[in-house]
Structure formats: C-alpha cells, structure tokens
C-alpha cells in the first residue's frame, strides 16, 4: 500500500520529464484482445502510441519505464453507468441520474457529472478509464456522453458529449390483472393489457414520426426555422449519425425493438439484453451490438438453468454479436463500476473466450462510443491510455498498479486507499 503510494509520487515527480517520449516495458502487453506481446514494449510520444511490439526502436533520449513484473492492458471502458451522476443511492440530494418526463431527448448526461465524485477514483483504481454516462427516466430519456475518469472539470472530462440517444423500450409483460388502486373498478384483462401494449408502441412510433416530420420541415426551410430543443436533440439519431441505445431485456421487447429499428433504419445498440442470447443469430446477422448487463442477475424463471446468465455472453459472442459487457444502470451500480472486469470474467468460466471477454470491456464499448480510433486497443496512433496490472486483468486476485491516460500518470488513490492508509496506521488503542 505504501509502496504503491510512493510509486505514484515518483511518477508524479518524474512524469513531466517523460512527457515527451517514453518506452514502457512489461512482462506482457495485451495490444488487442487477440494480440499480445510477451514481453512487450510500448513507445509513447506526446500522449499517443507511437509503436508497440515485442521490442520497439527507442528514440534518442527516450525515458524507459520498466514494469518487468506487470502486464499492460488498454484502459477499461464502461458501456454505461451513472458515475458522476449518483453518489449515495439512499440520499436523494446526491442523485442526478433519473429525470422526470416520458420524452426528454434534450436531456444530456454529461452536464451533470460531478468531477469530484468519490465514486470516480474508486472505479479508476481498478482500471476503468472511461465510462459512458447515460440518463434514465421515461421512455426517451436523453443522450449519453462519454467521460474520461480523470480531470479537473466536466468539460475537460467529457470525451464525447453526445454518444447515443436512449430509448427505454416499453414493457411487454402480461401482469397479474389486478386493480392498480383500491378505487379502480375492474382489473385489467389480458386483452386490455394487449391494447395497452399496442397503444404505447403506437405512441412511440408517433413520437419518432413527429421528429422525422420536424427534420423534414427543417430541411425544407433552412435558415428561418424556429428550433425546438427536444426535436433538435433527436436529429442526429434520425439521420443515423448517432445510435439509439435501446434498453430492453425481454425477448418480446427485443424482438419488437429490432423490428422497429429495422423499419426505421436507425442505428441501434441493444442494452440490457437479458434474453438477447435467444436471438443471437438474428442480432449477429443484423450487426446489432449488445451491451449485456445481466451476468449477475438471477435467471428470470425458476425453471431457467442456474447459470443461464453466466453463459449468455458466450452464446452471443459465438454467434458473432458485437458484445460489450456492463453493469446495470442506476445509482446502485455506480459505486460498483470497479467490478466491470469481473462481470466479463464470470462469463469466461461459462463459455466466453478470454479475448472476447477482454474485447467486451475495451474495444467493443469504444466502438459503441465512436472512439475506436483513439481507444480500446493499444495500437500505433491511438491514445496512450492504458493500465498496468500485477497479473491477468480478469483475475480478481490481480491488482492495477499504474494508469496512464493519454500518456499522463493518473492517480489510483481513492477514498478507499486513503482510509486504508489512515486506519492501517492506527496505533493499537490502550486497553480500557
């Protein structure tokens, strides 16, 4: 603990000296999910990767950082969280992740990131360098942004302010038809519930129809057009410039959403995706990426196999679905983002290959967020954003020792390490 802190101090001190050119040597460098160098070298120039390989040609005067016992991986990217929006789940004043209203496309998540959230350094300490931060609440909840988990202010931390438009697909479950309130006259029958389902989908369609009408009207009258913020926020998604991230877990929802997206020719990402493995081939064929968020939720039915959700990522990846793995969204999981790699590793024991598991928390989410050219793998020309670990990244017993974000040494200290140090040093109290 102390050692790592000293290391960190040393990095801080010599960091500026190395800012120009640095070679990192490591026991192993995982350049891409399927390519690694053992040992490996990584040349960083001005925050970018200049070269990578078993050994790279060292420029003159280049500093060398020798992590001979460590392994280097790309920084991890969480494909969705409430980091920075939610602090303490039980305390309403500390929560900003869920807005009211059913259709609020003009809500943007990045604007409410608290750069000093104690949760951010905790996630960082286990190798998470970036997170997509998504708004919740309602059916169209707004747009998510990609943030880097280090920086002095919200503008500095925002990598891409607008990554995806978020659509929470209406539920299709047929419930126990019972009155909602004691005053309600009659329970809702299955038929009524079916009508209700259709109505909600119709409303959803109408909303996007209206948005498209707005887009056409605007295109026809460029210049003198009185912009409406809500419709403006929809435009990038309608034109396919921005993906629509559809949150859906149930097979019926997923089927309906896929069909809907196909009809409308939108670019979509499926998020949640509890039952998506049942549609793996379709999703693969339509090249719809999936963010699987259910590795650690219980199977839906008592009759489902006990390891159903452990196996689902393996099934999806095998079918060729572009797979990211994430935690569920919301205040509850914001504090647990550091466990992102272990959601992926649990799937490895149940059929997901190690390289797909690595991809699911690095390059795949980078693709979703439109930053694959900069992030997600360690290749020449990309950002020098990486971590060094004591062993296999997916192994819980390993720990993250160093982090570089665009070549900059980044602190792995957190509320947790501070408290650990403070109380680790507590002198033994005198007996009473």
């Amino acid at each position, binding site marked *: 603990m102390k050692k790592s802190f000293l290391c960190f101090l040393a990095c801080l001190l010599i960091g500026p000296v190395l800012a120009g050119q640095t070679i990192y040597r490591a026991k192993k460098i995982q350049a891409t999910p399927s390519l690694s160098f053992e040992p490996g070298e990584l040349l960083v120039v001005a925050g970018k990767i200049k070269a990578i390989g078993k050994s790279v040609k060292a420029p003159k005067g280049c500093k060398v950082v020798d992590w001979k016992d460590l392994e280097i991986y790309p920084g991890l990217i969480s494909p969705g969280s409430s980091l920075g929006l939610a602090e303490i789940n039980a305390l309403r004043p500390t929560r900003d992740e869920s807005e009211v209203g059913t259709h609020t496309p003009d809500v943007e998540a990045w604007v409410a990131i608290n750069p000093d959230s104690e949760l951010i350094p905790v996630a960082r300490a286990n190798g998470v360098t970036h997170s997509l931060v998504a708004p919740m609440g309602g059916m169209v909840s707004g747009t998510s942004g990609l943030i880097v988990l280090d920086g002095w202010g919200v503008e500095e931390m925002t990598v891409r302010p607008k990554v995806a438009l978020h659509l929470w697909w209406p539920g299709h479950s047929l419930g126990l038809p019972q009155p909602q309130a004691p005053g309600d006259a009659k329970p809702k029958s299955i038929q009524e519930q079916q009508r209700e389902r259709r109505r909600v989908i119709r409303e959803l369609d109408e909303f996007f129809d209206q948005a498209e009408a707005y887009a056409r009207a605007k295109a026809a009258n460029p210049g003198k057009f009185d912009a409406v913020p809500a419709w403006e926020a929809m435009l990038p998604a309608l034109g396919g410039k921005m993906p629509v991230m559809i949150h859906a877990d149930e097979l*019926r929802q997923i089927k309906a959403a896929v069909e809907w997206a196909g009809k409308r020719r939108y670019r979509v990402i499926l998020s949640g995706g509890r039952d998506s493995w049942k549609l793996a081939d379709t999703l693969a064929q339509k090249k719809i990426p999936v963010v699987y968020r259910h590795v650690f939720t219980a199977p839906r039915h008592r009759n489902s196999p006990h390891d159903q959700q452990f196996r689902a990522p393996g099934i999806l990846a095998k079918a060729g679905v572009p797979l990211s793995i994430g935690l569920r969204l919301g205040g509850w999981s914001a504090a647990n983002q550091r466990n992102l790699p272990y959601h992926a590793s649990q799937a490895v024991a149940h059929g997901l290959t190690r390289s797909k598991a690595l991809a699911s928390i690095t390059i795949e989410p980078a693709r979703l967020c439109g930053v694959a050219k900069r992030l997600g793998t360690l290749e020449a020309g990309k950002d020098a954003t990486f971590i060094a670990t004591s062993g296999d990244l997916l192994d819980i017993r390993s720990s993250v020792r160093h982090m570089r974000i665009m070549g900059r040494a980044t602190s792995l200290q957190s509320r947790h390490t501070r408290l650990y140090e403070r109380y680790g040093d507590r002198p033994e109290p005198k007996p009473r």
Partner: protein
Amino acid sequence: MAFNILTSIALTLLLPFSLVGLERKFTFPGEKPVGLNLHALIGADVQVSPDSRIRGGVLLIRDGIIETVRKGGEIPAGYRKWDMTGKTIYAGFIDPYLLTGANAGKLLDLKHDHHVVATASLSFQGTPSTRPDPGEKGPGFEVSGVHPERKGSESFQPAEGSWKNLRQHGFTAVHLAPSEGIMRGTGPCVLLGEGNPNELILKEEVAQILAFDPVGKQQSPPVYPNSLMGALAVTRQAFLDAIHAREKSLYLLRKPSPLPDLPHPGIRRLQEVLDKKNPFPVWVEPGSCLMESRALSLGREFGFHPVIIATGDEWRRPDLALSKNHAYVSPLRFPALSKLPDEEDWEQISLDQLRAWDHAPGNPSLISSRTKSLSLTTTGLSLGEFRRNLLQAIGRGLPEKKALAALTTNPARICGIESFVGTLEKGKLANLVVVNGESYFAKDAMVSSTWIKGVPYRYPSENHEKAKADDNASAEKEPEKRTARFPHADRKPVESPSSALFTGFKLWTCSGKGILSGHDLLVKGGKIAAIGPNLRAKAPKDCKIIPGKGMHLTPGIIDCHSHSMILGRVNESTLPSTSMVRIADVVNSESINVERQLAGGVTACNLLHGSANPIGGQNAVIKLRLGSGPDGMLFEKAPSGIKFALGENVKQANWGDKYVTRFPQTRMGVKTFFTNRFTAARQYGLRLGQARQGEGPPVRKNLELEAILEIIRGERLIHCHSYRQDEILVFLRTMESFGVRVASLQHVLEGYKVADEIARHGAGASTFSDWWAYKFEVYDAIPYAGALMHERGCVVSFNSDSSDHARRMNMEAAKAVKYGGLSEVEALKFVTLNPAKQLGIDEWVGSLEPGKDADLALWSTNPLDYRTVCRQTWIDGVLYHEIKQTREREARRSAERTELITKAQKSLGDGKEDGAGEEARQRFFRYSLETACDLHPHSCRSHGCNSKGGHR
C-alpha cells in the same frame, strides 16, 4: 373429530331454536294456512350415503325430518306424492368453510401484499404489551387480529342472494367461518333455508379458526404483526397466555388476592382449545403449502389437532403438507388459461405456473388419498365453476364416492353436525339434492330441486336446458392425464453413498495444514473419516471413488448472512424489538435459491431476519439439503441466534416521512433501547426464578424477553447488523455491561476503524467484500476492511446478503487477496472456517478435518480463479450437486415446460378453458408463497429494509 358429539347434541337440545321436535305452525285466521308437512318422494334412486344406494326408493318426510327410506312399498295416506322416477336423491351438500365477514370469500393469500389503507397518521409502536389493540371494541388484546372470543352466531344474518345460488348447486348447509384476523373466533353452522334465522342455526360454534395472516400490514404505518413469522409468534404467545392465565388462577386459589382475576375473554376461549379432556376444535388456514406443515407442528406444540384448510397447492410438497391423521378442507379453485395475444407471450409463462395449472384438478384426489378426510368448499371460486371443477377433479382420479363424501359426510363430521345431516338416514333433516338422471357426477346432470328441512326449492326445467347447454361445452372433455411432474420428484440428492474416497485432489483443508497435495479424503457415514496419503486400503469395498485429477476440494461454503430461503416478509418491521419471531418458522425449503447456491458450492447459510429494528428476530442456520423440508434443513447442532441491528435502518432514516415516531430515531436512542430491553429481560429472569422457588406469582411467559434472557445467559448468539465505528463500539460496550459477548457483527463496514476493540471483545466480523456508498453510513466502507480486521486479530468472513452473490462466494473471497494481500488460504477461510466460527458451528463444519461433517465443494480449478466451476457439492456425505446431473435436471424441466405449453395451447384451442371465470384466469398469474419469495429478493443493504421484498 376431536370433540365430543354427545356434548354438542346436548347443547343443541338446550338451545331455543332446537331442531328436534319441530313444531308445526298453527296459523292465525287471515294468514295463509300451512299444509301438512308430509312428503313422499317416489321412484328415485336414493343415495343414502356415499356407500349405499337404494334403487327405485321411497323417501318419506315428516315435518322436515326423514321418516323412512326404503325400497318401494306403500305410501301412507296424507303424504304429498312426488314422482321422482329417473332422478337421483342425495343428501344435501354442506360447505364447511364459507368465509363471511369483511374478507368474505377470500381465502388467505400470502402471495401478495394487500393495498395499504391509510388509517392512522401517528402511531407509537413501543414494545409489546404497551397498549391494547386500538382496533377492538370491548376488552382488546394487545395485538391486532387476536379475538378468539368473537362469535359469528351473534351477528349472523342470512345472505339471501348468495344462498339462493348455493342452494341451486345443491348446498343445504354451511359453516360460516369468520374471515378476519389471526385468531378469528368461531362461526355457526346454518341451514341455507329461508325464514326465521333462529331456526336456521344447526350449531352455534364449530371451531376456533386460526389463520397465519399478517394482519398488521394492512394498516399504515403497519402494526405488529406484518410478517408471516410475526403471525406465528402472535399465535404462540396467545396460547402461552392462555396457559399462564390458568396457572395464575390456580395460584390465586392458594393465595387469594383482593383484585378480581379476570382473564381476557379471548384467552378464556383459548383455554377451551387447550383443555386436554374436552378440547374445543381448532381449524387452521395456513395460507400456503409449507405453512400447512407448520400448522400441524404448531398443533403438536400446543396439543391441538387441527382441521387444515388447504390452499390447492398441496402438490408442491404433499409429503409435508398432508397428514393421514388430519382432516382437510380444500377449495375447488383451479387456475385457468387465457388466450395470450402473441406467440412470444408464452415465453413469459414459467414451468411453475404451468405446473400449478396442470396439477390443480388432481389436487383434491391427492388430498383425499393422503389425509384422514377431504371436504370441499366453494370459498374462493365462483359457483359457476363448481361443477366444472368438481368433474375435472373426478376426471383426475377423485373417486365419485369420495367426492360425494367430501360434500356430505366429511363436512358434516368435521363440523360436528353429522347427527343431523350428511346422509339420508331416518331421523336426519330432510336436506336433499335431487338430480335429473343417474348421477350428480354425470356430464349433463342437473339439480332439479334442493330440499332444506323438507322445504323444496325447485329449478324449472327451462333453466336446465340453458344451463345444460353451457355445461355441455365444458363437459365434453375427456378425462385428462397429468403431464406436470411433482416438483419434489427431482429436488433431491444425486447420490448418497455409504462411503466415498476423494483421491488426487488439492485439498484446501482450511485447518492448520493448509493446502495438501497427494492426500486422499475418506468419507464414512456422512463424516470425514480420514485425510492422508493413499487411503484406498482403508476404504470399504463398496466405497465410491471420486478421482480428482488435479481438481480442488474445499470445505463447503458457509454464508453468514442470507435471506434467500425465507417465506413471507424477511422483516417483522413494526416493533423495535421482535425477538419473539423465528425464521425457523418460515424456512422456505422450496426456494430455487437452494439449487442455485448449491451450484456455487454453498452448503450452509445463516438465514437472518432483516434489519428493520434494533432487536430483530431469531435466525436459523440451515444446511442446503435439497429436498428436505424446512425442519430437515435446520443445522441441528447450531447454537440459537438472533439478529440485531444498528444505524440508519433501525432509526428508520430512509423509510420516508411517515416513519418518525417509533423509538429509536437516533443512535442515542438505539443504545438506550438495548439497555432498556436487556434490563427488562434480566428482571424478567429474576421474577421467573422467584416464581420457580414459590416466592412469587406465576410469571407470564414473554417470548420477547425470553429470547433476550437467553442471550444474557449465553444461550443465544447475537448477529448484529452495524456500520459506523461509534455505534459498533458503543454496542460492544453495552453488551459487555450485561456480560454478553457478541458472536458476529454483520456488515461492520467501519469495523476496520475499531478492529482492535472488536478483536478484544471477541466478536466476529462478517462483512461484504466491496459494497459501499449505497447509503450515507457506508460512505466510508472500504474493500480493504476484511484484510485489515483480519490483520488486527478479528475472525473475518465475507457474506452475501444477496441471492446473487451467494452463488459465487469463492469469487468474493478472492477479493481478500486483491484488497489487502491476504494469502489464498486465509482468503478462502473467509467463506468457510471463519463464518463457521462466527455461527458457533466450527466444531462440525468449516474445514477438512477428520470427524467433521463431510460438507464439501469440488472445483474444476483453484476456487479463487475466475475460470473455476463448482463441479460437485456434498453435505453430510450426500451428493447434492453434480454439474452434469444439475444440467440434466434443468434440461428435463425445460422439456417439461415445452410439453406443458403444447398441452396448454391445445387445451385453449379445444375450448377446454372456456368455462373458467375471470378470477381463475387471474389465478394463473399468481405465484405461490414458496415461489413468490424468489421473485422479490431481500437485502439488508436496501436502504429502507422495510420495503416489501424488492430492492435494487
């Protein structure tokens, strides 16, 4: 029946509305004169009793009484002749459990919470015995729902509308059972006739009705009891109060007091129940399949012999729910299918729902074959379905004779009215059902008249035709075979060899020996017999050999904090001290979590009450013996324990603005509260001692203080939910002041700040690996806490508090290596030996040592490696999980579900579901208590801890 018939007859004779010796009414002039009440029913087949039938019989009725039943013969003069050729006469049907009152017609449904009715804005919920139940008029009992003194006969009124309908279906008498409360009082048996209500009562009181109904949850804020285990504790305390009242009155005979001895009238009624010589009968409506077995055991505990009101779910665990020595009353409500709008909607339908649908019609036959007697009730179903469902039940194997008995002789016997009704014997009341044709149970049979006390109610034939058409639609079906399997059939051990030799494993002993290679482990008689190199020679001949091939064997995982297998609410969240409630009363042996956690290597867990109050309920340590009943899962030797809690949950900090009046609302108050209750318990102990030595009056056994007294005496372990360092320290000191050592601090997320003090006190620390920031008091939680506390000398465990985490506790243990750098050997102890120590069961489990229970988990590779899979799980030398077998079982279930969906869709297509009512269709979407609990996992991390199950 466990009560004296003669007495009841004698009582009846004394009543003013006595049936014997009916007087003919002599009308005043001007009134319509009444004819001679003499009827001769001629030519019908008379089904005298389920076992005897007279073809072409003659039935003579005089003044409402059956005068003669014989085959043919002369009809004496003066009798009105009824040609009943081609008809069949049965004894009038009896419904033994027609619920009346506020919840009329509603059988206890523990599956879903009632709507909260806001009745009170302010409620001080101090401690038990602080005030009488405010909801009662007259002498109130201290908790709501206990009013055994209530007599339904006092407020009895004929309900003409619904009675007419019942008569038309052949019913002539009913037991009007009270529907409100836990100890509900009694109801009368009445005739469904018209006229003077006084002349309709057959029996004033049938039985004391108990229901395991957490009635307190219907109030807002809820009052005690709002949980199933609370309802049981209330029941138990009430019986103990009755016993105490008797002791006290005996004492007062010896030592008279100037004060009058006036036990509560309800308590006096319970004394009648407990009267060994002449006990008043008790009927119990348990509300779920497993609770039926609890009703039976409660009967054994207090010496009563209940009639059980079945739920229709007995197929879930017939071995537990049904008893050969007890009579059962079953509703005839079967869930029915609805057409689902989309093909995909069938995805939503679970195997359990389909099984419930497919088993339901066979359930009455199941009850009939496995109990002393079956009676049927119409409660809970719309009468329109009665005959449809009855015929389905017969189609599924309920013999017609048994069905008839279930409608006549059996209900008559359990209601204690068999001397008047139930058969067509001479001298009994002329209560008859006349049916067109040979049999009531024929597809197209129709009731042509119902007779009550000799008065006919006739149903014109045009009605018949219409009804007949309706009936035909549903009656065309062929008898069906059951497709669904019994859930119990495959929830059982894979194998139980008499001995087993594990050879070639890496043995994680979790003892001083560390990890052993090249050693064998021999299991005999459920125990670890030996560990050593090459034990093959020592192994018995038929010993099962399990070759390890480099795999890893560890002690079974022990989860020190679980709520995964509890029926009903995990919290009795009302009172600040609920030490009288017992998790052992509500263990859910049927939870799917048993299987899921076995598949993660878990062999034992500590089922804890929630953290809604400083003094919570008694915990239950169980072993995951799949297939055993709730009692069979209990870890017999585990010391008793109790859940305590500190901090935000107990001061209701996150419960909402309504919850601001219960003491305590601050951490100051929490400490005050403990001192108060422990002092009270100590004084209670002193009084008990005095009474035992004859120096004082008998002491009322107080289940709350009894449990706390056990703690003071060192007979009950405290497992205390705690977070902040100050509250942890103060709690330890408070307990020390009563000479109590705390067994485990649960969560103890700031325990690392006072690790030395915890270690010196000797409390275990059972924590989470890395949860934090879900509420304010855990903002300082750190993942290094486990390692830090361990280094300072605490016995540390990681627990799940989650049905998810419990499936992968080995991965949680790995975090002790990651955060704080513990050795792998020590890390694994966090989920094996250390929790065993905290629960006081390390003498038997937690490590691999000769003499200990053979509770083992077998891993494909290092259990702390993410690539590991638990291949086998053994408990007491019995194999409960074997990955291949588990997968096959899951595949069988999947196939069964597919088969049932095909059957369901066919049934819908064939119109077989058409006759069902809306309620039956809704029922299909309900979950039984045993399965509903799996859908709403509980965790003490959820901030309210009083929310009904759901958390995020």
